[in-house]
C-alpha cells in the first residue's frame, strides 16, 4: 500500500535520513521504533509531505506522493496524528473535531464520527466547548487522536500516540489501534512504548541514526537481543 524506497532527507545541511526503505501493506499495523532522534518523526513528515525529501520515492497505492502537496496526501487517505498534538488552540474541542472532517468526502460522516469519538473519549464530550489550547497535555493527546479518526483514513500515521497518557488510557489507546485496524484501517505507528507497540504490530522496523537497521515481525523483534537491550532496557 505504502512503499518508501531509498528515502534521503536533511534539515539544512544536517542529514537525518539515509536510504530508508519501508513498506506498509494493506491491513497491517507496522511499528517503527528507534531511539531519540533516530528520524522516526521525520520519516512520517516526509510521508505527509510536510517536508520534501532530498531523494527517494514514496508511493501510495501506485500514486507518486512526491508530486503532491500535504493536503493532497490527506485527500489520498493518509492521515497523520502528529507528535506534539498540534491542536488548534483557539478553537473549541468540537471545532477541532470538525476540522478533522474537513475533506469533502468525510463531511457526510461528520455527525456519526463525532458520536464515535465522543464514545471513545468521554472526557472530550464533557469538554466539547473548552478551547483546545487550555486542555491538559493528555486531554490534548486524546483530542489529536480523535481528530485524526474523524478523517476516515485509509492509512493512519500515529506519532507517539501514547505520549503523556495515563496508564489506563495507554492500554486503551493500544486497544483502539487494534480495533480500528480490524475495521480495515492500515496503521503506521511510531512509539516509544516499544513493548506494547511491538506486541500489536504485524511487522516492525528499527531505525537508528537515520537508517533502518532491523525489520521483521513484531514478535521477532520483541525477542531480538539488540532490541531488548537498546529499547527495553532488559
Amino acid at each position: 500500500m505504502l512503499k518508501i524506497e531509498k528515502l534521503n532527507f536533511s534539515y539544512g545541511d544536517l542529514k537525518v535520513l539515509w536510504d530508508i526503505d519501508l513498506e506498509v501493506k494493506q491491513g497491517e499495523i507496522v511499528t517503527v521504533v528507534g531511539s531519540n532522534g533516530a528520524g522516526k518523526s521525520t520519516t512520517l513528515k516526509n510521508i505527509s509531505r510536510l517536508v520534501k525529501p532530498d531523494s527517494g520515492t514514496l508511493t501510495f497505492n501506485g500514486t507518486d506522493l512526491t508530486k503532491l502537496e500535504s493536503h493532497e496526501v490527506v485527500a489520498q487517505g493518509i492521515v497523520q496524528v502528529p507528535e506534539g498534538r498540534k491542536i488548534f488552540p483557539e478553537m473549541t474541542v468540537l471545532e477541532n473535531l470538525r476540522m478533522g472532517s474537513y475533506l469533502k468526502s468525510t463531511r457526510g460522516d461528520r455527525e456519526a464520527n463525532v458520536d464515535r469519538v465522543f464514545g471513545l473519549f468521554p472526557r472530550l464530550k464533557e469538554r466539547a466547548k473548552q478551547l483546545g489550547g487550555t486542555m491538559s497535555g493528555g486531554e490534548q493527546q486524546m483530542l489529536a487522536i480523535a481528530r485524526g479518526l474523524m478523517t476516515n483514513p485509509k492509512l493512519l500515521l500515529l506519532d507517539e500516540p501514547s505520549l503523556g497518557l495515563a496508564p489506563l488510557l495507554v492500554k486503551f489507546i493500544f486497544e483502539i489501534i487494534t480495533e480500528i485496524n480490524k475495521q480495515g484501517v492500515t496503521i503506521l505507528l511510531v512509539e516509544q512504548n516499544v513493548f506494547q507497540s511491538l506486541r500489536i504490530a504485524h511487522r516492525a522496523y528499527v531505525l537508528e541514526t537515520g537508517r533502518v537497521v532491523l525489520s521483521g515481525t513484531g514478535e521477532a523483534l520483541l525477542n531480538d537481543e539488540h532490541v531488548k537491550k537498546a529499547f527495553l532496557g532488559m
Partner: protein
Amino acid sequence: MTIFLQSLISGILIGGVYALIGIGLTIIFGVMRVINFAHGDIMMIGMYLTYNFFSLAGVDPFVSIALTIPLMFLFGAILQKTFINRVLGALPQNQILLTIGLGLIMSNTMMFIYTSDYKILTTSYSSSSFNIGTISISWPLAISFLITAAITLLLYWFLMKTDTGQAIRATAQDREAAQLMGINVKRMSILAFGMGAALAGTAGALISPTYYIFPQIGSTFTLKAFVITVLGGMGSIVGATIGGVIIGVAESLGAVYISSGWKDVVVFVLFLLVLLFKPAGLLGKSKM
C-alpha cells in the same frame, strides 16, 4: 445636547468605515500572523480604482464596489502568492518590513502613474445630508455604514459557520496541523489576504465620495487600522467592528470636548488603556 448627539452619530458612521479597514487587517493577521503595514496602501489602491471607475466610466462609487471587491481580492491574492507566502516562516520584523516595502512600492507606483495630486471625487450627493431633529446625517456615510454592516455580518457567518471559514481560522492557529487535516493552507492564505485586501479596498471605495485620494494617504489609515484591531482583539471580527466604532466615536467626541489637536491622543491613550487592562483586546481571548 445637539452637539453631543451630532458628534456621536457622525462618529459612529465614520466608525463603520474604520471597522471595515480593521476587519481586513484582522483577517490577514489572524491567518498569517503578519502585521500588514501596507494595509492603508491597499486601501489607497481601492480608492484609485473607485476614482477611475467614476471619472472614466461614470460608475457610481457605491455601485462600483461590485467591481472593486473582486479586483482588490485578486490584487491581494497575487500579493500573497508572490510575496507574503515566502515570509510566513520568517521573523516577525522581516514580515513587517516586507509589507512596509510593498507599501512603499504601491504608493510610489501610484505616484508615478497619477502624480501626487489630490484627487477629489465629487458626486451629486457628496455633501448631501438629511436631518433627524436637529442632527444632520450625511447620506453617503449612512449608506456606507449600511454596506459595512451587511459585509460584516456576511463575513462573520462565513468564518464561523462554513467549513472554508473554519479552515481559514484553523490555518491561522496551526498551519502544519491544518495541512494534516487536508486543508490547502496556501489557498487559505491567499483567500485570507484576498479578503483582507478586498475589505480594505471596499473601505476605500466607500469613503471615496466624501474623502480625497492621493498616493501617500495609506499611512494614516494603516495606523488607524492597527489601533482598531488591537482594541477589538487581534483576529476578532466582532472586535474589529466594535473597535472601529469606538475609534470613530472617540475621535469625534475628543474633537468636541477636548480639542481637535488632542483628539488623536485620546484615541491612542484609549488604545493603551485597553491594552493595559485587557491585553488581548476587548474581545480577544487571552492566551496562556
